[in-house]
């Protein structure tokens, strides 16, 4: 174990709660959380258990970041078209 791995472990252990959401529960709540965030509302006040799960779970966090960016660009009318996305793959 190197220093970076030790730090990662300790940060996760430090934030560990007795009750944490499952990945499935996170998936179910994520669209609402993202819509609130994109609308400039306070998602953590409405869905307080989601952020702690995102801090613990790298795969759910990656999905959240992608969905948030997608929803944000769409709301701003800046999401590339399917053709453009396909061309720039």
């Amino acid at each position, binding site marked *: *174990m*190197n220093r970076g791995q030790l730090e990662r*472990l300790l940060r996760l252990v430090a934030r560990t709660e007795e009750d944490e959401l499952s990945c*499935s529960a996170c998936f179910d709540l994520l*669209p609402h959380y993202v819509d609130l965030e994109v609308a400039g509302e306070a998602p953590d006040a409405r869905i307080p258990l989601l952020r702690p799960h995102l801090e613990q779970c790298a795969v759910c966090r990656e999905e959240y970041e992608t969905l948030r960016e997608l*929803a944000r660009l769409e709301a701003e009318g800046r999401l590339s078209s*399917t053709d453009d996305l396909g061309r720039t*793959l």
Partner: protein
Amino acid sequence: MGAGKPGRSNAEWIAALQSSGADQAAALAELRAYLLRAALFTLRRVRHHVSHLGPGELSQLAEDCAQEAMTAVLQRLPHFRGDSRFTTWAYAFAVNIALVAARRERWARVPLERVLESGASPAALPGDEGVPSDPERSALRAEAIAAIRDGIEQHLTPKQQQALRAVIFEQVPLDELARLWGSNRNALYKLLHDARRKLKSHLAARGFKVEEILDLFVGGG
């Protein structure tokens, strides 16, 4: 596709998808276009993970992900509660499926069994190498390391030790470890959550707050 134009309301989406004939066909085609766009967007974001695939293969992967997402959305349609926009809810399926596929592509050539076996052993915790010596701090670090090592070796099951090594140390995605073990993401998350709780309790019983240990290693000398 309808994105960018005034879209359907949630109720209009549900009604059209549950109708029949031309209305349903149009809604299905529109939904599929949304899902394909989300899959393409997702794969482009993680292009570096799938850099071994050519544009044609990536396009096909996006099509496959959109199709799989379409099936999932239609299966789960009765469970849509309307808390979010329908399109955000549908996008979540495409994003999830595309990221799982990209992770699978990325890790396909990595022998995970070897990662599990050869990952850093808990016995090899970092010491004070390269850190300016402060005898008191060094002694505290050694004590903390011993407590962490004991917590991992004596209080975690072999499965928890392997999961911790793979997911936290080597950053193997939960999906990939779940696939290797014939398990699922929820079960592995719970396995790791239990492991973290055990470690936290063990360190507290040994008189350590985790934040204090972090400060010993991350804070200045």
